[in-house]
């Protein structure tokens, strides 16, 4: 029964909510147990791609079929959801002690898990929409539960963009329903292919709106930074790691299952790629660039990572949009890998926040000695993020580059490289300012996080390296997905992937890196130890420095670089949206002041005027 996967978490949500009122840890424990159950039972579902379930409902005179089915694509997303939820739940068992909205968190988190599985199992628009809305609404509360005012505003922006897009989606879906008499994807795809291409393309673009919003693709990315940056620290990994991906899932559904690519096949093309696909890829490229530049400017470490998420989503979109076997596989790889390393980063940051209570990077420093495992997790994850072998992040980016070079999309490739190189800059910033440098006096007594928080980080480190060495594990399911969607598959072995101009052998690279690492370790252990000097045990230019802060250069880390982009359009995009809303409000206010001025005589006049005007209209017509 596929409904079990959806409704067990949703039912458990209410149990968790009630129990959480009694014991703060109960909710997280239930979340962990439910996710573990989901993961186990989903594993049992592997390979059984024929399971479907449907309900017929005659709802208020509409005959509606609700269809659920498993396929490799949805299975992958469901497993990803369940796996990451276990880790986050484990992590949050301890961290929720001081969390004011602990019960709200567990209630909404479990509903989100359930509705996300509902989304990926849905085979028709209405089921998809219902769970999509459920996910959006519950995540609104979760984001709101974050840091005070900013979180509220972020959640607000998020819900309004999402709702607007979702309503547009609903409209298009109902339009298709009225043409075909069914909400099912299959009949919709048939209809769209047979329909006039212009209308079909319009419909599909509207349908993809909520997915674009959720994936944070330029120009609808404005909610991502504040929402991810201000969400509760336990939720950020999920938000950034998983919820963005569900947008990508939607895009894949639109592109392949609703035959967007098939419809635009014969339209104007650029280098053999339909212009619309290229435009999507271009959006991806712009997303990469804006995300990267804005990440570099950030002083808040969570917002920095949030922007980095935006830019990484750009890679995934590029790969999917260019629609080559390599591109698609690269995107799927990157999608999984991004989930892994981005949640690692957020968990590590959550651990830091758990101990220090701040997210401002310039208020921290030198935490490497106090929180070594957190540091290790963060380091591994940013290495993966920047795409350095032997981590998983390298492989996926490599496959995407291969795909871009294979077709010769110069601009896209440059954008991708730019993003990759610049990501060094921004991920190094937290590394240097939070973990390296001087330990702040107020953080002298900080300890490493408790065991339950260490375990998820440790698992994630191992997974990063595991997938970095054996990408074949991921390629197995990806090729099944490719096969399911009718894309050519890519040749691979357990530790190598066949690219366009050469194969990548990760085992070889891993061995080389390990050798280098061991040599370095040996050198470090046997070379002469450096002497540790106290923080204030020094002077400069004859002047004693009594303030430890001055030794730690962390505020406006990349100031010269920032200046370059100070006037970048991406910043004013938010302003643009805000001006738009402000004008809307102002027009409403004008109307209000003009019409509802509190004058009884005016109100009486309106009734007479209405009569006269309507009578005149009736006379003329």
């Amino acid at each position, binding site marked *: 029964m596929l409904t079990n996967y959806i409704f067990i978490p949703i039912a458990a949500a209410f149990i968790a909510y009630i129990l959480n009122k009694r014991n703060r840890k109960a909710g997280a424990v239930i979340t962990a147990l439910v996710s573990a159950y989901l993961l186990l039972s989903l594993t049992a579902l592997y390979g059984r791609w024929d399971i479907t379930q449907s309900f017929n409902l005659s709802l208020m005179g509409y005959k509606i079929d609700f269809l659920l089915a498993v396929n490799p694509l949805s299975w992958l997303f469901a497993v990803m959801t369940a796996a990451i939820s276990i880790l986050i739940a484990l992590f949050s068992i301890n961290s929720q002690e001081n969390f004011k909205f602990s019960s709200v968190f567990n209630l909404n988190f479990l509903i989100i898990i359930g509705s996300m599985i509902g989304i990926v199992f849905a085979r028709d628009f209405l089921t998809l929409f219902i769970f999509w809305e459920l996910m959006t609404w519950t995540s609104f509360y979760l984001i709101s539960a974050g840091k005070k005012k900013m979180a509220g505003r972020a959640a607000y922006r998020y819900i309004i963009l999402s709702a607007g897009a979702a309503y547009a989606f609903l409209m298009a879906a109902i339009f298709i329903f009225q043409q075909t008499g069914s909400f099912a994807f299959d009949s919709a795809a048939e209809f769209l292919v047979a329909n006039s291409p212009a209308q079909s393309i319009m419909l599909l673009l509207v349908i993809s709106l909520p997915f674009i919003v959720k994936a944070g693709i330029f120009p609808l990315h404005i909610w991502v930074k504040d929402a991810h940056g201000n969400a509760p620290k336990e939720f950020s990994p999920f938000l950034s790691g998983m919820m963005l991906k569900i947008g990508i899932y939607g895009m894949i559904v639109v592109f392949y299952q609703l035959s967007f690519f098939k419809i635009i096949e014969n339209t104007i093309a650029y280098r053999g790629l339909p212009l619309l696909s290229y435009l999507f890829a271009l959006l991806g490229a712009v997303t990469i660039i804006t995300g990267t530049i804005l990440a570099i400017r950030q002083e808040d470490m969570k917002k920095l990572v949030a922007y980095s998420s935006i830019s990484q989503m750009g890679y995934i979109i590029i790969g999917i949009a260019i629609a080559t076997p390599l591109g698609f596989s690269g995107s799927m790889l990157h999608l999984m890998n991004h989930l892994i390393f981005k949640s690692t980063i957020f968990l590590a940051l959550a651990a830091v926040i758990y101990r220090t209570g701040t997210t401002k990077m310039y208020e921290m420093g030198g935490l490497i000695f106090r929180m070594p495992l957190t540091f290790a997790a963060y380091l591994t994850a940013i290495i993966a993020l920047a795409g350095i072998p032997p981590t998983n992040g390298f492989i996926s980016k490599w496959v995407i580059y291969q795909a871009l070079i294979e077709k010769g999309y110069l601009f896209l490739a440059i954008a991708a490289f730019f993003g990759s190189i610049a990501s060094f800059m921004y991920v190094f910033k937290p590394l240097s300012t939070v973990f390296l440098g001087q330990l702040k006096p107020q953080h002298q007594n900080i300890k490493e996080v408790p065991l339950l928080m260490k375990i998820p980080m440790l698992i994630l480190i191992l997974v990063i390296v595991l997938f970095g060495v054996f990408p074949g594990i991921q390629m197995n399911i990806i090729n099944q997905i490719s096969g399911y969607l009718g894309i050519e598959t890519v040749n691979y072995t357990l530790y190598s992937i066949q690219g366009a101009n050469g194969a990548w052998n990760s085992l070889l690279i891993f061995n080389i890196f390990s050798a280098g690492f061991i040599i370095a370790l040996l050198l470090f252990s046997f070379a002469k130890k450096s002497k540790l000097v106290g923080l204030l045990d020094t002077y400069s230019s004859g002047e004693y420095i009594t303030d430890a802060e001055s030794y730690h250069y962390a505020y406006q880390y990349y100031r010269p670089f920032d200046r370059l982009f100070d006037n970048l359009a991406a910043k004013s995009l938010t302003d643009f949206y805000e001006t738009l809303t402000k004008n809307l409000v102002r027009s409403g206010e004008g109307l*209000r*002041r003009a019409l*509802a*001025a*509190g*004058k*009884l*005589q005016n109100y*009486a*006049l309106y009734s*007479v005027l209405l009569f006269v005007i309507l009578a005149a209209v009736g006379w003329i017509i």
Partner: protein
Amino acid sequence: MLNFLEEWSFFGGSILLILIGLYGVITRKNMIKILISLALMDTGVNLMLVALGYVKAANAPILNSVVQTNTAAFVDPIPQALVLTSIVIGTAVLGLGLALVIKIYDKFSTLDISKIRGLKW
């Protein structure tokens, strides 16, 4: 000519009375005058209703044993019944309105509606 005048003076007069009342509601600032205007409108409508039911050369719709008239020659009694109800309702509304005026006056010490705009927007 006279028939024309007779018929239309009632309709025209009652419509004009309604319009005068409406004009009063829209332009007068004094609350008592607004209510007076409402009363004028009511009177106008009542006049109109009775005029609509009026049949020339007919009798009042009263049956008695002395005058045995043909029932067809009665004025239509239904509008008159309506008007009776309407007069009562109108008076009730006016009474309530005046009570409110007194209450408002207690609070604001003015009858000028344009000075009482606590509720707007």
